[in-house]
């Protein structure tokens, strides 16, 4: 019968009209994120051996690190600065796979909207300069 | 000066003003829109003349259909700039004089004629009366108008679509 489809469609919409909502009330209600979620990156400077693998693995030159010779024997490299420029990050996780020490990992943070673009790039570690 | 008198003068001014604007407006679309205003004013006159049904019909058909058609026609035939689209031709002065003479003649005739005015009141509702007249006394004109409209519609369609050549 002509018009059957129209009536069926109305039935569906009316069913949903009186049905429950699916919405997650975001700002009040935090989303439940899976453990593997690719949020922004966290860096643990304690274990870093300054091998630079993360820097080479990154496709987009996001990671920049500075180091100096130092330590007890003067041969060990010591991290002085570790900057992640999130403006260029693709959140692919290649750096995390590359890190032999597990210093880098994804966090569950995702709200980083800013009013200024350079606030996005993040200095993860900077050695305090002793005066 | 009763209210209806004031209303009459206002409407008369609107009708004549917009009618003159139809002639003088340089942009054809504006002219057409002024024509709509004229029709509207005329419908107001019908209300004053206690022809409520006719007033409504005037709006429904003149404003709602005829004027729209005309504006449509304007838009279909003019696509670029609309300035200077409503110009008068070279013989406008002759025409003007002719029309003025005619107007004087009309005025003379109207004012000189002693009209026999009846002082009956207009009927309360005209719709029923009109319907009855149309289907009794004027049934043949009514049918003819129907046929005329049909023919006009068919003619318009054939004209615009172009008659298909027979194989």
């Amino acid at each position: 019968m002509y018009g059957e489809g129209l009536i069926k469609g109305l039935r569906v919409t009316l069913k949903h009209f009186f049905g429950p909502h699916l919405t997650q009330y975001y700002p009040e209600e935090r989303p439940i994120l899976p453990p593997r979620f690719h949020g922004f990156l966290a860096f643990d400077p304690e274990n870093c051996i300054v091998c630079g693998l993360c820097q080479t693995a990154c496709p987009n030159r996001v990671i920049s690190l500075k180091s100096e010779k130092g330590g007890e024997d003067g041969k060990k490299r010591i991290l002085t600065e570790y900057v992640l420029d999130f403006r260029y990050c693709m959140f692919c996780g290649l750096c995390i796979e590359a890190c032999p020490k597990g210093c880098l990992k994804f966090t569950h943070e995702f709200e980083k909207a800013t009013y200024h673009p350079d606030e996005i790039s993040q200095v993860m570690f900077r050695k305090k300069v002793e005066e | 000066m009763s209210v209806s008198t004031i209303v009459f003068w206002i409407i008369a001014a609107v009708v004549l003003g917009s009618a003159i604007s139809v002639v003088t407006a340089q942009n054809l679309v504006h002219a057409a829109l002024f024509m709509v205003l004229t029709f509207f004013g005329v419908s107001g006159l019908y209300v004053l003349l206690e022809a409520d049904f006719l007033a409504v019909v005037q709006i429904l058909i003149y404003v709602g259909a005829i004027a729209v058609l005309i504006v449509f026609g304007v838009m279909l035939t003019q696509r670029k700039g609309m300035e200077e689209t409503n110009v008068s031709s070279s013989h406008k002065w002759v025409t003007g004089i002719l029309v003025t003479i005619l107007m004087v003649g009309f005025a003379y005739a109207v004012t000189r004629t002693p009209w026999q005015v009846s002082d009956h009141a207009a009927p309360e509702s005209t719709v029923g009366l009109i319907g009855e007249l149309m289907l009794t006394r004027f049934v043949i004109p009514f049918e003819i108008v129907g046929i005329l409209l049909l023919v006009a519609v068919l003619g318009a369609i054939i004209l615009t679509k172009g008659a298909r050549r027979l194989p």
Partner: protein
Amino acid sequence: MTQFAIDNSWLIPFMPALAFIMIVFFLRKAPQASALFSIACIFTSFVLALGVVGGILANPTTTEHSVTWFSMPGVSLEMGTLIDPISGMMVFVVTLIALLVQIYSIGYMENDPGYSTYFAYQSLFAMSMLGLVVSNNFLQMFVFWELVGLCSYLLIGFWFYKHSAREAAKKAFITNRVGDFGFLLGILFLQILFGTLNFTDLADIIPTYTNIGLLTVVALLVFAGPIGKSGQFPLHVWLPDAMEGPTPVSALIHAATMVVAGVYLIARAFFLFVAVPNALMVIAYVGGFTAFFAATIAITQNDIKRILAYSTLSQLGYMVMALGVGGLTASMFHLMTHAFFKALLFLGAGSVIHALHNKQDIWEMGGLAPKMPVTTKTFVIAALALAGIFPLAGFWSKDEILLAALSNGYTGLYLIGTFVAFLTAFYMFRLVFVAFYGEPNPENHPHESPKVMTVPLIVLACLSVVGGLVGMPWLKTNFGSYIYFGEAHHGYSLSIMLTSTLVALAGIYLAYLMYYKKTISAEAIAHRFQPIYKLLYNKYYIDEIYQWFINRVVDGAGRVAYWVDLYVVDGVVNGLANGTKWGGYLVRYLQTGQTQHYGMVLIAAVVVIVILLGLIDPSMGIFAGGGAK
């Protein structure tokens, strides 16, 4: 019930009209549904018709209902129904045959792509025919008269992809126009002379009218209609060709109902014809001649449907002749019985054609009797009825006609009628023996038709057997006591009965000898009477004569007129035009081609004229008091 049927007789044509509308607008896509709906509607009409007949039988009076259709001073047109015994009988016959034919068509038309259309046309036809029958005035009758003509046209040309069908449809339509034109003129005369077209009113007025000469003209003009519609002599040519349509159509329209509309019209307007004896005589002789003429053609034809068509012509001639001699009862009686057995014949022929996959030549048939028992039996019954064998239907009605002819002093016509009865029996049994009992044609694989087709045959066969008994002269209230003109009379003549039966049996026997036993060689006779045979075989060359007439006389006249037009009229016109042209050269500079200029001149002229009138002759009152008067 009966009273309801009589009071609401408008429903009878309305039901098929409903079917037509429903099929055209809604059911066209569903062939079965349209067939069923159509049949249901016509069945309803049939039931109503039974009610009408019942009412008439109980109380044979005239019931008229009418509403004003349109009126203006001088003319008042009505629409209405008139139910009296004649129309009651007709309503019954038409609905019955239409019902049976429609049922039959389910089987006959199956697998036809135009199935729904066919039923729509059938319904339209039934509506028009029934409308014609119940009409109470000439104009309404004429409207339906034309509608049945239209249906006939549509149905003859139903298989319009066949060239012959298209041509036949056109022929039927055009030929009928000739007669209808006369009919329309007659109606106009009646309206002008008497100011009314109502049958009952006219029946009251006409007998008092004195200008017999004028009335004769009117009557003959009206008779032109039946000549066309009922295929009387000069305009009979369309009917045999009309057999191009589907066979049920031939049965319904071109045998049982539409063609008898002419006869019915004469019967309806009998008061008119009775008033002018000369017209009645013309009718009688036209009918008699047609009966003889068609019958002679029928004996030489080979196409099964054409034989039946000529037979129909012949029988129609009979009916018209009966009317002409004043035997309204006989004519109507024959109309009814003829409807039964002729419809049966056509349906039987259709069954045969259906079984043989559209073969129509009787010489290609043969030996159908054992393969198609029901068809054969019913066909033979019908043939016997047509031949007028006691006690079948045709016997009674034919004798009535012969009796009427003789008792009214038309001895010549009586002799012709008797001879025609002989011819009828002969050609019918020629057909039967050749087609059903002849040598089987090895190419054919005939099979009995399905139930939907045979059941109507059986019903009609029963009617053909018993249908005539209602007119038995020995009954106290027989057919003639309901339908009559003037006063009812009962009479019979054993001698006539005997003669006609013997004559018919002789015809059958002759056919038996010639075509079954083959003791008399048909070929030899044909050879012997070569010129006559050829004349008959070619239907008296009527078609050729018409063709010649049109080619030579009409076209010749046209050529003469053309010459005159070209050299005389055009010469004058061209001369004038040349003069005008030179004049035009002088004044063409006034023509700018600009509409506005013309408009301006027009308005200027109006202004000038008004001013002049106003100034010169104030008494014209242009400026003073137009509204004052």
